[in-house]
């Protein structure tokens, strides 16, 4: 069971703002889905190693050589706001409360 407080906490972590209606709905939906998921708690998995990746690759490295990359103006072309050849963001000092 996941209650309203937990939903609001997780939403804050995920940088989502939920309406009252959404909080209630998501609380019910997540409880439902987590109820199903919790069946994996019944399995004995103590000696089982976790799988993070199905293929055997580790540290796919390339030589540390500078290669051509996107020109700056191309990389900035999709940005909502740009200034001084960089991404422009609002001031964190203008946030209503520190997060």
């Amino acid at each position: 069971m996941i209650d309203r407080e937990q939903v609001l906490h997780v939403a804050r972590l995920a940088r989502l703002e939920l309406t009252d209606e959404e909080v209630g709905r998501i609380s019910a939906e997540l409880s439902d889905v987590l109820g199903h998921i919790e069946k994996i708690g019944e399995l004995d998995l103590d000696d089982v190693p976790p799988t993070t990746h199905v293929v055997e690759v580790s540290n796919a490295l390339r030589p540390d050589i500078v290669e051509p990359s996107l020109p700056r103006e191309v990389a900035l072309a999709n940005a909502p706001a740009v200034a001084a050849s960089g991404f422009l963001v609002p001031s964190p000092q203008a946030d209503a409360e520190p997060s």
Partner: protein
Amino acid sequence: MSATDVTLLTAAAAVDAIERGELSAGELFEAYRAAAAGDELNAYLWVAQDAPAPVREGAPLAGVPLAVKDLFCTQGVPSQAGSRILEGYRPPYTASVVAELAAAGAPLLGKTNQDEFAMGSSNENSAFGPVLNPWDRTRVPGGSSGGSAAAVAAGSAPWALGTDTGGSIRQPAALCGIVGLKPTYGTVSRYGMIAFASSLDQAGPLTRDVTDAALLLRHMVARDERDSTSIGFPGEIALPASESLEGIRLGVPEELSDEGVGIERGILDAFNATLRLAEQLGATIETCHLPHAPHALSAYYVLAPAEASSNLARYDGVRYGARVEDGGLVGMYTRTRSEGFGREVKRRIMLGTYSLSSGYYDAYYGRAQRVRTKIADDFRAAFESFDFVVTPTSPSVAFELGAKTSDPLAMYLNDYCTVPMSLAGIPAISIPNGLSDGLPTGFQLCGPAFSENRVLEAAYALEQAIGFDELARRARA
């Protein structure tokens, strides 16, 4: 040939016709461009306006055009992964696999509709509206590659690219009566695919028949140093030719082929009929066991949302897409994400963030990773006794639009038979398996990692025996 005639050719037949000089690539492209522009299924989000540059002399795919799921980045062409949060995004580069296929002679025809960020099994989660199933327009095409599947089934594309994270190629292929193949994880580059769950996402073909799937896949597999999990494929993908299953051992997992787990009777009847056909072709059929498969969906719905919650952190209104101002910085992030993401995406971000959060990580994410190990072990054990494991692709035929949108768990159960292979990273194909109540069903066949050539051979033999006529629906329409 008339414009209608040329769109009746399979992609492989169109390649042959062009090479023999009976058809021009330009004529073929225009016929499909017109069909895609006139699409009434909402399968396309963007269609090419102009004919592409002529393909190079001797290009193996000869100019047969390709429809591409929206989430593949295509330079200068809208690529929004079905989401409002990528409003107006035109990537400065093209996904490796799309570039490889263009170089092989398959130019971009259009971008296809999909569930937002590939999260869904019905295509109803697209910010651009649902796709309609060409067999019955009151029903879903499946998802998340629903636009690609519908376009191929309706004949507005000769073939298409999709992506499969937990069934997103195979399930819509089944619901639309076409072929869909999820390759071994790592065989096709993920570079330029807008990510959902990076340890599961894999690109693959949606085609009218098995031969077309083999032909397209042949030009997709490649090691790509821009994707650090890319491996490539040992050898070449061959075009299948065998019409026999002599000596082939098929395992039918009890856990994924029983009415008790929610598979419709009509789906099981069609599945069992094909097992009998397989026996006539020389295969032996035995029950096998994947004891952890019933837990695959649980593990998947922890792991995929967890990876998604991390991957989707990048949509913050800074570098691309939409921005909604709210005075400060964190306020801008929050407003942008809250207004840009749709309902299912928010649900999965919440689920993923929850299962990764302090105090819950071990119980959910850690356990799910261990279940994943057990599922891969189950398949390894099965492949010691069997060449392939076979199941129905989807537990149901295409359902009515809106039937499952208010019940996320019911929607997630669509992936019951496809998720285990995704977690194990192994190749799996869905082929048309006749009709149930007048709607297509799918037969799924999977093999060990990198067994694509054998999977395609067996699927081809079954396809010939089943004799599904994919043109039947269009003739009727």
